[in-house]
Each structure stands twice: as structure tokens, then as C-alpha cells.
């Protein structure tokens, strides 16, 4: 029931409020644009129809058109305002960005960031090189959180039963419960997500101390219970495991996607890949990765050997490995060749005791974790490549048990009040608990969350939560290092942080997060200068816990139960919208999933064999996939039945279906509402990560459009091969013939045999910007794609437009398979603009809207473009992007401050493309010129390069022979895409080199067919 609220009504309502709360909030309100929207929009009671914002865009296109039409006639501009400060802040230079260190939470764990701030408006996130979990790299979630910050759909007022109220009201309303909680037991509960923040932890502890009748529960949908329980099985207590892949030569992943997901994955990816950068003179062996998993993960996609098994077989494999190391010969129930692989895997591990690591995935059962610990102990890797530390959480608990207890008590009526600090349990609690029903039995329900979401709707009280860029705080990194989070901007939508709420519960309405954090650390010996240093560095040096000494106890007795047969379901959080919390983030929605390249959806992922069994024939797949469509499949799993679009992933284990949860939100916001399918109903507390016994049948009826950004029907491998798009070899083959990338008909190296009738342009007395991308170390994690989007104001287009193949990403990651569809090799190839010296796009432009700069950049001049699209047609790499409609969102005021002021926002009807971040180049050149020097190597860092966790992208000046990029260009493995077209690309690639186990794949002669 949404009611609209007119101004007078609002006046009358706030008229009889008293106290400084009200004044404070009104001041805040009246400052933010949001305030105006607040009146214009219908009162935000989440009655927003399930529209995907496309209708709105359509309207904007019309407006945009008329605006553009008006723009055609040059008319005298009205004077526009220019507003200086009254008192200009210290060390602030107008027109120059400032960088602040902070830390971003995800699943409770922090990753250090540097935030670029223009006029004190955060516009871009970079990784903090000082921070152990980042080392300067950043992932999609970090990059996209800028959009999350400005998201106009965020909740903007305190609500009581959905109607607007004030912070004061809320605090007032809690008081009676607090009274109660002083005496009688466990009447008031708080539910949080995983918390590693020391100061927030301390606050909660003191809160609990203050109110004995209060109880603290934790629930994080992306559950790491198995990790905790695994460590307890092995060591008797909760320990966290930190890996050092720089010290690892053989790595076995038991269903772990440590390169693409989970705490510290950025650091892990960097460390791991640092061991496989094969260069001309690499002699010492590179590391080797075995991936045992069901679905295809980023880790699996770069593994040297991948063993696709059913989830239920994982324990067997783990036991076999452990037994094998102990000399025992337990056989996993696997196919013959899989068993063979496991055997040579074991031998490989034995050969590398002390430097071999086995790592189990968060989704794996606790016992697998325990076994992994045991194996690592066996291998003697604990202390070398594996480090054990005391849990970084404030209060590690079995969160499943915790929420189960909460639900039980709510059902029994024991719970008088529940304050949910963050999270969305109504949406993401295990289905069988029926959290909602229990929740609605609680007489006082308050919810702190950034959106007015499913849980808020069922709560009496809703308090808008601050974005992490708006509040003070502190967080531990994956290795326990603490960072202080500092706000980059005052709360845009007058939200409250958990610190403030807890503080308010403790007493004192004005317990600001700043005081909370500061007092905590000053209570622990912080001084002004140390505090300053922490803020500046973004880390508290030496705050990481010391390694815990512990040995894994003997492997516990098998708990393996024989699977119920049928198809096994693997449940995972979504790779781009996580547990659903990012559902309203358009950048993440439109970000192609790393392996499937699907956007705006979650689908039922199965392997080719399974598809055949289901009667979904290859021919039909091809026919449908031409038009980006697929059929529905009926999934019946433990009484739940659901229709999901089916999708085939090569390499996906047989008889396993992977389902991502997080989609199908109803109250996510204009962008995320009703996108995808809600699969949480399949999540049972005894099988959080899936189970067996599912029945899948192809459903008749209409097909379903899937917005997949890469044509995925079986491409004749010859096509990819003979075109030399991907060139790869084993490390052995490389050592035999470092030139393998240049044999056969693709012989010519960049710069060889590309004579032209025309005299060459001379770039020698200028810079010659160039890029090299190392395909061996790219994990396809998408960090670069979305970093580019954030840096260059790239719009999103919505699912419909993506299905029309009109996505706008300047940088895409092409994914190719090679070999057996059931056990393929996967190749990731990031494709930005090649910046060809003989750019085919330029001579065909009738208005010279695209031309070459003195530095050899392939410039695109938006304001000159009339939009004939000829350049795009003539681009062999198809990297040009056209604004078919008015994609850029001009109408939402809230999003304006988010844009990068150094990059033009493109209007409808113009072409755009990767510019090598020319704004950064020009900035660096101007700096250098001002200091009368040449631009230094590494001074210009493109957005994609900066984000890349594995440093696969290197950018610089080719003319400077000492530059990193120039050296890589000299590498034997350096090759250009479609070099035979004489386009002379400035972007080149290093061929893909893997290190397979000769036992499994005997070293072939360097493959000349370059699949």
C-alpha cells in the first residue's frame, strides 16, 4: 500500500517533532538532492513496479533526442553559476582529485582501497598497494561500490511501518525493550552478519554486557561455516588459514575458487600468478595447479589439470589424497582417467613436500576442510605455504546454528524484539527455517539496511544504513590486518552505520561512528600521529595476528553418506551480485559472469553430457544460441520445483547442475527488481551448498532470452585455431621452442613482414603508448572490465539491449575453449582497443571523428561523430561501441557526481571505444611537462591495468626501450591479434603457457595449429 505524501502533509508531520534530532536531519535532508526527489517521487514505499528501468530509459532517449536537436542550433547560453567555497579547505586544489585510503567490507572481511575524490566526491576506487589483501588490485565489487554509493534507490528515511519517521522516534521506541532486556533473559536479540571490525565487536560486547537479556546472532548468506567447522574438526578450535602462494609449487584446489572469490583472492591471484610469468629466460619450473571441482570456476579455468567431479565425490578424492600421501591406496569412486589423474596428482604432491598446498573451497563440507588441513600437515606445508592464524572474526560461531536458534526462539515467542543490523535474512535465510514466518511473530522488529528491502518490508522499523564510503569504521583483511575506514562523503541519504545504532542502544543518541572507532583505538594505545599514519597508509602495521601453532589431528571418521542419486545440485552465490546484495547495481548486473558471459540473469548450469541426457541436443542449442535464447528446464529438488533456463558450460561435471542464488529480488530497487530467478527456496539448512537427488527435465513451452555477451554456440575450433587468436603451449614445449607462437602460417612477429606501400609515420620523437597483455596469468576475473566502466563513465544498457548485442563495455574478456568439451582448456583474452597504427577505422570516417594522435593513439572525438558506424564495421576486432540509444543516464541527479569529470559523457548516436585512458595519459604528460621532464615508465597506469590482480596488463611507452612494456614486446611469446591484416596493433599479447604434469599430458611438440 503505497501512499503519496505531499509537502504540507510532511510539514504537519514533522511540525510536532521536537529535539535536535529533527533539526539535524532536516538540515541533512535539505542539503541532499535526494530531499527534492523525496517529494517528487511517490513516497518510496517500495511499490515500484517490476520495471527494469528500461521504460524510463526509453523516455530518456526521446528527451535526449530533443535535447540534442536543440543542441544543433548554437544559441547564446544563459550564464550558469560558479560557486566557490566560503573557506577553502587546506591542501585542496580545485580541479585536482585527492586520494584517501579506506577499506571495503565484503562478507565481513576488508580489502584496502584508495578512493579517488573529485571536489570531495568519491568517483573511483583503486586497491591500496599497502594492504595485504589487495596489493593495489581491485575486484568488480570494489569498483562497482561507487555506483552503490550514489544509487538513488537507496533507502533515505527512517521508517515506522513503512511511513516516514525519525531517528529519534526509533531510539525512543527501543527504550522499553532495552529496559526489559536489562532483566529478563534473551528477550532482545540482535542479528548481524560476519563481523571482523574490532571496534564494532567491542561495542557489541559492551552492549551485551550492559543488557544481560540481550543475545547476539550472526548470519551471512555466503556461509563460511564449513571453513570454521573444518578448522575445528582439525585443530579443535576456530582458526583461519592464510596461504602464501609465492612459496607454493604445486597447488591442489578441492573445489576452491581462491583465484576469483573469497577473502584475500586478489592477493592469492597475485601471488599465485607471480610464479608463472614465463619470460625468455625463465628456467626454474613454474608452479602447477590442479583443480578438482564440479562447476567451472575462475581457478578451474586457468588450472593445468582440472578434474570435474560430483560434489559428493569430493570427500572421497580428499581421502584418497591423504591416504596416498600416507602410502595407503584408498580409491575415489571416479572414472578411470580421473583416478589416474588423482594418482599422478598425489605423486606430484609427494615430490613437492613443503611447497605443495591443498586448499578446500568454502562450499566444501567441513570434513573436506579437515582433510585438507590434514594433508597440508602431512605435506609439511603448514608454516611454509600455509599459515594458521586465530580467527579474524570478533566472535566466530557456527552461523547456521546461530540463526537456527534464533528462529526457534522466535517461533516459541521467546523473542520480544529483534534488531537486524545489516543483511536481508527474510530473503536469504535457509528456506526450511521459514525465517519470515518466525520473524513476523516478533513484536518488535527493526532493520538496518541500505535499501528498503524484503526484510525491511516485514519490519516495524527500518533505519537506512550508510554505505561504507560514508562512515568511519575498521575491518580486518583476510590475514587479520586491520584498516581504518574513513568516510569520503557525508551520508548522502542520511543513513546510520551499525556503529551509530549500537552506540545509540548503549546510550547517547549521538554516538557517532567516528568516536566509536577512534575511542576504541585510542583506548589501545593509538596516538594522534599513529592514527594519522594509519589513515594515510590505510593499514595498521603489524595488526595481523601471529601465526597460531597447531597440527591437524588425525582425519575424522568418514561422515560420507551415499548420495541419493539423481542429479546433484551445486548451490553457489552469484559471481557478480553476490548473495543478492548487489542486485540493484547496474554495473554488476551487466557485468558478464566470468565463465558464462551471461548478464542480468542466473541460469541452470549443466555440462554437455548432462544436456544430451536431458535431450537438449547440440543442434537445438546452436539454433537457439544464435539468437541468444535457451529453453527452460524443470528442476525438482527435495520437494521444490522450479523452472530455470538451462545453460551448457563445457567442462561442467556430469550429472551436476550448478545454480547461483542472489537473483529474483523483489525489493532490490528499480534496477534489480524481478531480475533473474530466486533460487533461495532450494537452499536447505542441512544442504546449504546443494545436495543430491534432484530431477531435471526439459520443460516444453516458450524459449527464454539470455543476455549473453559472447556467442557461445560451438564455434568450429579450427576457426579459432587457424586465425591464431589464441596461441598456447606447455612450459616444456616453450623451453624446447620459445618461438612457438610464431611458427606456421602466423609466423610473423609484430613488426615483421609488415611493409607498406605508404611511408611509415614517425613516432620516434614522441611517446608511443602500447600495451601487452599476458594471457597466461589472466583469470578472467572481470576486475579490468568494470574498472574501465567506472573510469570512463560507460553506461549500462539493460538486458533487452544486451540481448540485441549492444553492450557498451570498452574492454571485453573473450573466452575460448580448447579440446574435449567435457574437459576443455579455457583461455581468457582481454580485448581493449588495439590502437592500431594503421587503424582501419580511421580512413572510413567521413568527418575525421577518429584519427591518430602524435603518440599514435587512435583518438575518438565524440563531439565530432555523426554516427555512420562505418568505423565499427571496419574494425577487425569489433572493439568499437555505439550509442544506439541515449544510454547515458542524464536524468538521475544522484548519479551526476559519480561520473569521472575528466571523461566526456557520451550522448546518443556517437561511437565510443577504449582510449588507453587518454585522460590519465594527458594528466601524466602535463605533470611531466610542468616539471620539464619526460613521462616516467609506470607513471601512466590505465584503469584496467591498475585493477588487474595478476598484473596481466602492462602499459607504457614503447619508444622508451627500458620500459617494462618495451621489454615484454621483445619477448618471444609476444604476438599481435590478426597481425596479417597489417593493422599494426599497439596492443599485443603474450602467448598462453601452462605447466601440465607430463605424467598426464605428455609434452607434445609445440602445437603449430594454435588452438
Amino acid at each position, binding site marked *: 500500500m503505497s501512499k503519496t505524501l505531499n509537502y504540507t502533509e510532511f510539514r504537519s508531520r514533522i511540525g510536532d517533532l521536537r529535539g535536535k534530532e529533527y533539526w539535524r536531519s532536516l538540515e541533512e535532508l535539505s542539503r541532499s538532492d535526494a530531499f527534492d526527489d523525496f517529494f517528487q517521487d511517490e513516497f518510496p514505499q517500495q511499490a515500484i513496479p517490476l520495471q527494469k528501468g528500461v521504460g524510463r530509459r526509453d523516455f530518456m532517449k526521446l528527451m535526449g533526442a530533443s535535447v540534442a536537436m536543440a543542441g544543433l542550433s548554437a544559441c547564446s547560453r544563459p550564464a550558469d553559476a560558479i560557486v566557490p567555497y566560503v573557506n577553502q579547505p587546506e591542501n585542496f586544489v580545485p580541479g585536482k582529485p585527492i586520494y584517501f585510503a579506506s577499506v571495503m567490507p565484503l562478507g565481513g572481511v576488508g580489502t584496502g582501497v584508495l578512493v579517488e575524490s573529485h571536489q570531495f566526491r568519491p568517483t573511483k576506487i583503486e586497491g591500496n598497494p599497502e594492504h595485504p589483501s589487495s596489493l593495489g588490485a581491485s575486484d568488480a565489487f570494489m569498483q562497482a561500490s561507487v555506483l552503490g554509493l550514489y544509487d538513488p534507490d537507496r533507502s533515505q528515511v527512517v521508517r515506522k511501518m513503512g511511513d516516514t519517521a525519525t531517528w529519534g522516534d526509533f531510539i525512543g521506541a527501543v527504550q522499553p525493550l532495552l529496559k526489559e532486556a536489562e532483566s529478563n533473559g534473551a528477550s532482545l536479540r540482535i542479528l548481524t552478519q560476519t563481523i571482523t571490525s574490532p571496534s564494532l565487536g567491542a561495542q557489541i560486547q559492551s552492549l551485551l554486557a550492559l543488557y544481560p537479556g540481550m543475545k547476539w546472532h550472526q548470519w551471512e548468506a555466503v556461509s563460511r561455516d564449513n571453513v570454521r567447522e573444518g578448522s575445528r574438526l582439525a585443530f579443535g578450535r576456530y582458526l583461519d588459514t592464510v596461504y602464501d602462494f609465492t612459496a607454493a609449487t604445486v597447488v591442489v584446489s578441492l573445489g576452491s575458487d581462491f583465484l576469483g572469490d573469497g577473502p584475500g583472492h586478489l592477493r592469492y591471484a597475485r601471488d599465485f600468478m607471480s610464479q608463472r610469468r614465463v619470460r625468455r629466460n625463465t628456467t626454474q619450473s613454474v608452479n602447477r595447479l590442479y583443480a578438482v571441482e564440479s562447476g567451472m570456476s575462475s581457478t578451474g579455468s586457468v588450472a593445468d589439470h582440472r578434474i570435474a567431479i560430483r560434489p559428493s565425490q569430493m570427500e572421497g578424492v580428499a581421502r584418497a589424497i591423504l591416504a596416498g600421501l600416507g602410502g595407503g591406496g584408498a580409491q575415489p569412486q571416479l572414472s578411470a582417467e580421473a583416478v589416474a589423474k588423482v594418482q599422478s596428482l598425489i605423486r606430484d604432491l609427494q615430490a613437492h613436500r613443503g611447497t605443495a598446498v591443498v586448499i578446500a573451497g568454502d562450499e566444501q563440507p567441513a570434513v573436506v576442510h579437515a582433510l585438507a588441513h590434514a594433508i597440508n600437515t602431512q605435506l609439511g606445508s603448514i608454516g611454509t605455504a600455509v599459515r594458521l592464524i586465530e580467527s579474524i572474526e570478533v566472535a566466530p560461531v557456527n552461523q547456521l546454528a546461530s540463526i537456527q536458534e534464533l528462529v526457534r526462539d522466535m517461533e516459541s515467542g521467546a523473542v520480544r524484539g529483534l534488531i537486524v543490523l545489516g543483511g536481508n535474512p527474510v530473503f536469504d535465510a535457509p528456506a526450511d527455517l521459514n525465517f519470515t514466518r518466525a520473524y513476523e511473530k516478533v513484536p518488535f522488529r527493526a532493520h538496518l539496511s541500505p535499501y528498503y528491502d524484503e526484510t525491511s518490508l516485514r519490519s516495524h522499523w527500518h533505519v537506512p544504513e550508510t554505505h561504507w564510503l560514508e562512515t568511519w569504521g575498521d575491518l580486518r583483511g583476510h590475514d587479520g590486518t586491520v584498516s581504518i575506514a574513513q568516510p569520503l562523503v557525508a551520508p548522502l541519504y542520511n543513513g546510520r552505520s551499525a556503529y551509530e545504532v549500537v552506540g545509540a542502544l548503549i546510550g547517547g543518541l549521538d554516538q557517532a561512528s567516528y568516536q566509536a572507532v577512534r575511542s576504541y583505538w585510542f583506548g589501545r594505545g593509538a596516538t594522534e600521529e599513529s592514527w594519522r599514519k594509519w589513515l594515510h597508509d590505510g593499514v595498521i602495521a603489524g595488526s595481523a595476528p601471529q601465526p597460531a601453532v597447531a597440527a591437524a589431528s588425525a582425519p575424522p571418521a568418514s561422515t560420507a553418506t551415499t548420495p541419493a542419486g539423481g542429479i546433484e545440485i551445486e548451490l553457489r552465490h552469484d559471481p557478480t551480485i553476490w548473495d543478492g546484495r548487489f542486485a540493484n547495481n547496474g554495473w554488476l548486473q551487466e557485468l558478464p559472469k566470468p565463465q558464462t558471459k551471461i548478464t542480468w540473469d542466473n541460469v541452470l548450469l549443466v555440462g554437455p553430457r548432462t544436456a544430451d541426457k536431458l535431450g537438449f541436443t547440440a543442434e537445438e542449442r546452436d539454433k537457439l544460441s544464435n539468437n541468444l535464447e535457451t529453453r527452460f528446464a524443470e528442476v525438482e529438488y527435495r520437494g521444490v520445483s522450479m523452472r530455470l533456463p538451462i545453460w551448457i558450460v563445457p567442462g561442467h561435471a556430469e550429472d551436476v547442475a550448478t545454480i547461483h542464488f542472489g537473483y529474483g529480488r523483489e525489493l532490490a530497487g528499480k534496477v534489480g527488481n524481478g531480475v533473474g530467478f530466486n533460487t533461495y527456496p532450494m537452499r536447505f539448512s542441512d544442504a546449504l551448498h546443494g545436495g543430491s537427488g534432484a530431477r531435471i527435465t526439459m520443460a516444453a513451452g516458450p524459449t527464454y532470452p539470455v543476455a549473453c555477451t559472447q556467442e557461445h554456440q560451438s564455434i568450429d575450433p579450427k576457426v579459432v585455431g587457424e586465425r591464431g587468436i589464441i596461441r598456447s603451449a606447455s612450459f616444456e614445449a616453450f623451453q624446447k621452442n620459445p618461438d612457438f607462437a610464431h611458427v606456421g602460417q602466423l609466423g610473423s612477429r609484430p613488426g615483421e613482414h609488415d611493409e*607498406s606501400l*605508404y*611511408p*611509415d*609515420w614517425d613516432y620516434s620523437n614522441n611517446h608511443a603508448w602500447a600495451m601487452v597483455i599476458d594471457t597466461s596469468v589472466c583469470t578472467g576475473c572481470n576486475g579490468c572490465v568494470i574498472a574501465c566502466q567506472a573510469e570512463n563513465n560507460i553506461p549500462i544498457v539493460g538486458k533487452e539491449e544486451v540481448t540485441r548485442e549492444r553492450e557498451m563495455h570498452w574492454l571485453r574478456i573473450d573466452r575460448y575453449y580448447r579440446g574435449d568439451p567435457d574437459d576443455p582448456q579455457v583461455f581468457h583474452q582481454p580485448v581493449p582497443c588495439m590502437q*592500431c*597504427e*594503421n*587503424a*582501419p*577505422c*580511421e*580512413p572510413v570516417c567521413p568527418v*575525421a571523428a577518429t*584519427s*591518430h*594522435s*602524435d603518440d599514435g593513439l587512435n583518438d575518438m572525438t565524440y563531439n565530432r561523430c555523426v554516427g555512420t558506424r562505418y568505423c565499427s564495421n571496419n574494425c577487425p576486432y569489433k572493439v568499437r561501441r555505439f550509442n544506439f540509444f541515449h544510454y547515458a543516464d542524464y536524468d538521475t541527479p544522484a548519479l551526476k557526481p559519480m561520473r569521472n569529470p575528466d571523461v566526456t559523457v557520451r550522448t546518443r548516436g556517437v561511437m565510443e571505444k577504449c582510449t588507453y585512458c587518454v585522460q590519465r595519459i594527458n594528466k601524466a604528460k602535463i605533470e611531466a611537462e610542468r616539471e620539464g621532464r619526460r613521462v616516467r615508465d609506470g607513471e601512466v597506469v590505465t584503469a584496467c591495468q591498475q585493477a588487474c590482480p595478476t598484473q596481466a596488463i602492462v602499459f607504457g611507452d614503447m619508444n622508451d626501450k627500458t620500459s617494462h612494456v618495451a621489454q615484454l614486446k621483445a619477448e618471444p611469446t609476444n604476438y599481435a591479434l590478426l597481425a596479417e591484416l597489417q593493422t*599494426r596493433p599497439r596492443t599485443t599479447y603474450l602467448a598462453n603457457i601452462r605447466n601440465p604434469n607430463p605424467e598426464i599430458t605428455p609434452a607434445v611438440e609445440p602445437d603449430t595449429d594454435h588452438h
Partner: protein
Amino acid sequence: MAIGKIREGLYGVIAEFNDPQTLLTAANQARESGYTSIDAFSPFPIHGLAEAIGFHKSRLSTIVLTMGVLGGLGGFFMCWYASVIAYPLNIGGKPLNSWPAWIPIAFECAILLAALGAVLGMLALNGLPMPYHPVFNVRRFDSASRDKFFLVIQARDPKFRPEEARRFLETLGPREVTDVPW
């Protein structure tokens, strides 16, 4: 002849014939008998008629040629100037003066100007447009655009005597002979 001025007296004497052959013969005789300012009118071009009334060459070819050459050079110059002088840009690594690329435009410009030259030149030389002309005063002249053929001896002809001219035309086997007033 000056247009639009009201003149006194006759413009000339005109004879109407039924078929092209007679007109052609008549025109020849008129010329041979010494008349210089004569003109013939027919519903379609008759070969030899112009020569018969003593009209030989038109300067059209020269006009068209000059226009064509101008157009060609102009087009080429425009391309060269724009790309080499006015705003030199590195376009896809091609040289500034990629002259082969200028040829199509030079060619088109040549054709365009030549064609304009031909049409406008023809009209100008013919003194068209001229919606008003004395011969339109002749009652039956509208059939000059249908099926009849006319021969006029103009008054300005030094040898012109109205009666003589009339008599002379009568001898040529016309359908009828009439005066053409100004």
C-alpha cells in the same frame, strides 16, 4: 534583339508550312535569295534546318570543356587543401596527401560543373527564358509545337520590305502567310 521593349510596327512576316520538307526547302530558298535575319520554327529538330537559315556553330563545347576542367581541378584542390594544408591529421597512418583518394571527388566535381555548363550555357545562348516573344502573337503559332512548321523573315533584315517578303513567302507553298506584330 532587345526584349520587353514595346516597339512599333512589324517584327516580321511569317509563313506556315504543313511538313518539314517544305520548310527546309523554303528556308534554303530564303537564305539563297539573300535574306539574313530569318528564323524557322518546328515541333522537333530538323537536320540541316539551322544551316539552312544560315546558323552554323555553337560555342557550347568550349563552355562545357572549361567548366569540366575547372570542376576537376577544383575538386582535387579542395581535397588536397583540406587534408594537407587546412588541418593535417594522421588518418590511419595514411600520408597526408593520399592523392588516389581525391580522384573520385575530383571526377564528380568535373561532371557536375560540366553538366551545369551544358544546360545553363544552352539556355543562356538561346536567350531563354523568354516567356514573351512576338511570334506568339501569330494566331496559329501554337501548332508550331504540334504539327506545323513556320518560317519568319524579320523586319530588321536590311533586305526586308513587308510586301516583298510576303510575296516571296507566298511563292514557297505555305499554308498561309501572316504579319508578326511586335
